């Protein structure tokens, strides 16, 4: 059974159709890529899945639940986490705090219990700290733990954003251009990293990416958007040979 089932969603802003008739099915453990020229509606599709935009029509089903038009925080709670194209960390909070914030959604203690430091809360706080520290350690971010997130080098910020998303305990991770601004060596490392976290955290991954090397390297399936319309879907080999894609996308993007 598919973990995520996006059925024919359309997102309109006033008269403008940003995404039309977009469908996607994601199985457990899959890595699927979404590519397309700038302004093709990739991030809009992401925003519709994560609840930031409400689709004008169509439906989204996640693990048997209808999540169409659900609030973003509810969707995250159910198990879909994301990163942002233009990194959105809590810049003035420390690296550790950034990850701890992502644990808040599972907190059972009330604010009064938290304020009064009741034993139940302290237990939860200790557990989330331990887990957060382990997570940061696993992602080689331990030494930055007490730094302000905004002061981290670019590459580490991207990594931290993924760490923060992982801390919400997602079943599906949506990555919006994780390799943006990376050199070939860094993007190679990123590919290994993505596969590693997929296995370690038992994830399905849906990612937007411009770096063809990355997309073709790790995605099992690829969708191509152009002007909001899905013009192709298939394995990396299919996409590379698809005439429509070459015209719409590869012909335009010289750095591919």
């Amino acid at each position, binding site marked *: 059974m598919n973990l995520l089932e996006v059925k024919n969603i359309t997102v309109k802003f006033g008269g403008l159709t940003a995404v039309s008739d977009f469908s996607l099915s994601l199985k457990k453990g899959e890595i699927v890529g979404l590519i397309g020229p700038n302004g093709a509606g990739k991030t809009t599709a992401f925003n519709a899945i*994560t609840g*930031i935009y409400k689709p004008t029509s169509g439906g989204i089903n996640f693990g048997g639940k209808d999540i169409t038009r659900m*609030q*973003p*925080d509810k969707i*995250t*709670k159910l198990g879909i*986490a*994301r990163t*942002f194209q233009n990194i*959105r*960390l*809590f*810049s*003035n*909070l*420390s690296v550790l*705090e950034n990850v*701890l*914030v*992502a*644990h*808040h*959604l599972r*907190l059972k*203690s009330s*604010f009064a219990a*938290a*304020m*009064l*430091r009741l034993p139940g*809360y302290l237990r*939860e*706080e200790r557990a*989330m700290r331990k887990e957060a520290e382990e997570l940061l350690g696993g992602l080689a971010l331990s030494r930055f733990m*007490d730094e302000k997130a905004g002061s981290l080098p670019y590459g580490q910020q991207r990594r931290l954003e993924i760490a*923060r*998303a992982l801390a*919400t305990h997602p079943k599906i991770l949506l990555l919006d251009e994780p390799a943006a601004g990376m050199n070939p060596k860094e993007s190679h490392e990123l590919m290994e990293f993505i596969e590693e976290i997929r296995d370690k955290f038992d994830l399905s991954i849906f990612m937007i990416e411009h770096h063809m090397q990355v997309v073709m390297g790790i995605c099992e399936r690829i969708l191509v958007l152009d002007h909001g319309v899905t013009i192709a879907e298939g394995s990396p080999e299919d996409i590379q040979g698809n005439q429509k894609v070459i015209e719409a996308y590869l012909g335009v993007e010289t750095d591919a």
Partner: protein
Amino acid sequence: MKSTAKILLSIAAILLFFVFLYWAQKNLDPYKVRILNLCAINIILTLSLNLTNGFTGLFSLGTAGFMAVGAYVSALLTMPYDIKTMNFFMVPINPVLAELHAPFIAALILAGIVSTVVGFLIGAPVLKLKGDYLAIATLGFGEIISVVFTNTQTITNGALGLKGIPQYTILYWSWGTAVIVIIGLMMLLNSSYGRAFKAIREDETAAQAMGINLFYHKLLSFSISAFIAGIGGALLGNLISTIDPTMFRFSLTYQILLMVVLGGMGSITGSVISASIMTVIMELLRAVESPMNLGFISLPGIPGMRMVVFSALLIAVALFMRRGIMGEKEFSWDMLFGKGAGRRESA
């Protein structure tokens, strides 16, 4: 320094301070005691506004309105029957209200609770939206409270206000409350909920994407802030003993706003410092408003000049000192003993 040592140091400092208050309450003249009381009340109010504006990123301007609610609730609960009926000579008081009476502690807590309820009713519709609408809506709310209180004569005595409110606010009450609010907020803001508030301030969209229920947490922050402001208003009413609806208007909120901005939006200790300093400065500035004789020349007093200085200061801080005294940092013992720059809260 070890954290247990810091906690002990903090407790010692607080105890020492209360010894000072004990001495001050007995030995200082009433004027100085009043200023000390005002310091504490302003600290409470500044922290209330800083919780929303500085820590949660909600630009609220409703402080004066919540203070009004708190002040009236506490006044009506603590005034004796005779004084109440004497006050309401134009339109008689609602008979139920006339009979109501409660000890000061209960009056303070109820002032906070009623203010919270009002805050909830205002916040629920407005907090769903992003942006600066909150500023206008809460400012409007503050102005409207004053309109409403002028019109509800059987409850508030209208424009005549209330006179002869028992002066229960002594240093132990005002500073006791201030210390509780300071410690309570520090504990709240260092908890997971505090991190959620700060995350909302930093980036609402990202916070929501991390599973934080924006509406719930904004409303929580806003309501706690209203609670604290209500208690602050109650303490003020029971200090100055006379209140009327026009007291609680925008000008009061702006004064508190200056203290928040000056201390640093997002710094508790900054608020404590700036509220104390500004309270004293405001008193010193009274000199400008009364005639002065400098020996060779005598200057006439300029009524209202204090507020001109005050508002000029607000612009200056916004323009040249955007982060205020403390920024988002906190004063800590480490800072005092020179062990590294101010790190996270520790007091």
